[in-house]
């Protein structure tokens, strides 16, 4: 069923003239075939779709506001778990404390705190609902993942295609500078770039569901807390930084493709017909290079989400709700309330694995070498 849905979707996506070949019936067929062969890919797609939907409709599905503190309910365990703490309490007899040797007599008693249905994944150190924070954190992670990848793809593919198509000095200069970028560990490079950019690019974008009153109406109708945040943080700095750190991968792939495509006879034929370089790049080179670039893109989204989490964990993000940031918050409760750090960690793992499964599926299904025409 999912494969049919995707076939339908792929056949209708407005890819535009240049990319139309990508959705040729043959491509759709091989995508479907890949999906049938690869059950994990289906899991990946389901995961990614769920995470995407949850992030988009956060104000409708989050059980609570991500920022509401309630110290009385701090560190509640997730559903299915009971938190047992051993406390020293005064021994009471008939309503009064007992003294022994001039001291209040105490005893060790185990106190049980039960999970509540209101906080299915428990609460953090400040009593905030973890599930709600994960849902809002997904917005940040996916925004950074998708926009960062898109930006990296744009920069990297432009540079790579030009370098590969023109070769020579242009290639030398562009690709050597790319090599320099690769020489630094990405996290170090990212921190340095954040230092340069500061938070000049941070933006708040209004949340359409809240602004229009839709989510508030729905929430009050079904009895959920209202007053969801009216804006979402768009961590512009982080997006630019992860793109600047990761464009190199796209540049290398695009360059390799351009190098081989420029030698294809149809590119030569287009030159013989008088086509300009820009036209050739847009019409012959890019469309034929797009498959590996898209495959790399899916995998890069996952890598960038990981990078964003790392930066948030280290405190370099201005977003106040983020998976990485929440892991950092949970670190001090590691021994007493493991779920505060574990839940966002799990969210990262599930999303990244899901994206990689999708990436593997695309790679296998779109790779013409594997596709095989079955001839003899």
């Amino acid at each position, binding site marked *: 069923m999912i494969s049919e849905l995707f076939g339908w979707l792929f056949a209708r996506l407005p890819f535009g003239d240049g990319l139309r070949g990508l959705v040729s019936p043959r491509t759709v067929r091989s995508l479907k*075939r890949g999906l049938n062969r690869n059950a994990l890919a289906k899991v990946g797609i389901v995961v990614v779709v769920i995470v995407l939907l949850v992030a988009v409709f956060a104000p409708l599905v989050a059980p609570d506001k991500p920022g509401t503190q309630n110290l009385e309910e701090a560190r509640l365990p997730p559903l299915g778990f009971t938190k047992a703490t051993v406390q020293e309490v005064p021994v009471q007899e008939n309503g009064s404390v007992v003294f022994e040797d001039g001291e209040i007599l105490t005893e060790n008693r185990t106190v049980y705190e039960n999970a509540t249905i209101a906080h299915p994944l428990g609460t953090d150190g400040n009593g905030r609902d973890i599930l709600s924070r994960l849902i809002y954190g997904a917005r940040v992670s996916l925004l950074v993942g998708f926009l960062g990848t898109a930006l990296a793809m744009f920069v990297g593919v432009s540079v790579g295609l030009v370098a590969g198509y023109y070769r020579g000095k242009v290639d030398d200069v562009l690709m050597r500078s790319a090599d320099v970028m690769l020489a630094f560990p990405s996290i170090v490079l990212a921190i340095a770039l954040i230092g340069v950019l500061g938070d000049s690019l941070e933006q708040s974008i209004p949340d359409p569901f809240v602004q229009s009153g839709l989510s508030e109406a729905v929430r009050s109708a079904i009895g959920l807390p209202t007053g969801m945040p009216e804006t979402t943080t768009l961590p512009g700095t982080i997006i630019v930084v992860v793109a600047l750190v990761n464009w190199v991968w796209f540049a290398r792939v695009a360059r390799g493709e351009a190098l081989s495509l420029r030698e294809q006879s149809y590119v030569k034929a287009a030159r013989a017909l008088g086509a300009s370089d820009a036209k050739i790049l847009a019409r012959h080179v890019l469309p034929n290079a797009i498959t590996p670039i898209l495959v790399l893109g899916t995998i890069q989204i996952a890598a960038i989400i990981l990078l964003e989490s790392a930066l948030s964990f280290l405190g370099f993000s201005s977003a106040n709700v983020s998976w990485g940031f929440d892991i950092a918050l949970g670190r001090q409760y590691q021994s007493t309330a493991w779920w505060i750090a574990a839940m966002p960690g799990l969210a990262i793992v599930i999303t990244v694995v899901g994206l990689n499964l999708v990436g593997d599926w695309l790679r296998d299904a779109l790779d013409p070498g594997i596709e*095989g*025409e*079955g*001839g*003899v």
Partner: protein
Amino acid sequence: MSRESPGERDVTPNAGRDSTRERDASPRAHRDTGHERDRLRVENLTTRFFTEEGQVNAVESVSFDVREDEILGIVGESGSGKSVTALSAIDLIESPGRVTDGEVWLREPDLAEEFRERTPDAVDGDFVDLRRLPKGVRRSLRGPKFSMIFQDPMSSFNPSLTVGEQIAEAVEVQRRASANPRSTRSRTQGYGLGKLIVDTLVPGREYTSDASRERAIELLEQVGIPDPVERADEYPHQFSGGMLQRAMVAQALAGEPDVLFADEPTTALDVTIQAQILDLLRDIQRDRGMSVVLITHDLGVIARMCDRVGVMYAGEVVERGSLADVFEQPTHPYTQGLLGSIPDVEDPAPRLQPIEGNVPNLVDSEMPDRCYFADRCPKAMEACLERPAERPVDGDPDHTARCVLADGEYDPATALPDDYFEEDPEATDAPAEGGAADD
């Protein structure tokens, strides 16, 4: 070539096209009637590929024989099944392909003696049927009995080993085999599991003896490689295409094979280098009295090299006979068309006579139940709507054609109209009318 009375082995027309084609009732009625000089007899060999697109009938009931001290040519266009035929004969077909039917009789008196009691089915006089022999025995025959050289020498050598090492390795295998004369089955045991493990664990281990190395150099010299001592230590990429093809011939000769299959051995080479390799092949064949099966698409190469010829089309041998039979009295219209469509370097005809249309793909579901060539044949008649059997041409058992014209006349009265096969306008290969039709 056919040793039995005409028609005896003919496949019943309209037999089901399933993978296990029905054979005639007395499959080995021809026992001991073979040509006395036969070294290899291939009978009704059938190979299928089971791909996602469906079953591909790559080789369709192919029969031929190879005699002592001769070069048999198999000629056909790409996709005609000529390479798969050779691979099927020496049991090198890999999944998704499978030899589904047929017999490959090799004259090997010692083996015949050994198996006569155990598996009488697999023995016929001095001949053994390779397909009925145990797998290990079959494999042990590769090298000392059969060898093969391929079209692309570059991809046939391991780039990370020197050419000398690779040839010495082939020699080593044969040397060990002959050092243990007890039985052919033990031939591969000299290179057993233990040795394999040791060689795998110790990288770069020299596991060829000096004797094998010397033999390798000797072989390189025999195939005309200058400075063989130095060249033996070079890597494949340091060889030119022609030199590497010579080296491949040397490797194939390591086991002193009786039958050498050469699959398009000169197609990747320039014409002057091709001439050198062809001369080399002929010299070696003559010197050693080898039988060679030369597979090529080039009728010129066939004419220069081959004593007898089989023409393949769509997985079938459509015509076979002596060189003169096939080139001077071609009977099958496909053979005629093939000969008519090549330009002659000495006598430029004003206009070529191409065969119209395209080579069919061999997907089982698309193979019609008629002569496979009828849709392109200028002499297609109503009789061609049945599958033709292999018949002798004018009663000559050494010249056969899979065509009704072999023993019949073209009858214009029953000729099929030109557009008879165009009932499917959506077929991809529609423009069968070709270039000449429009003026």
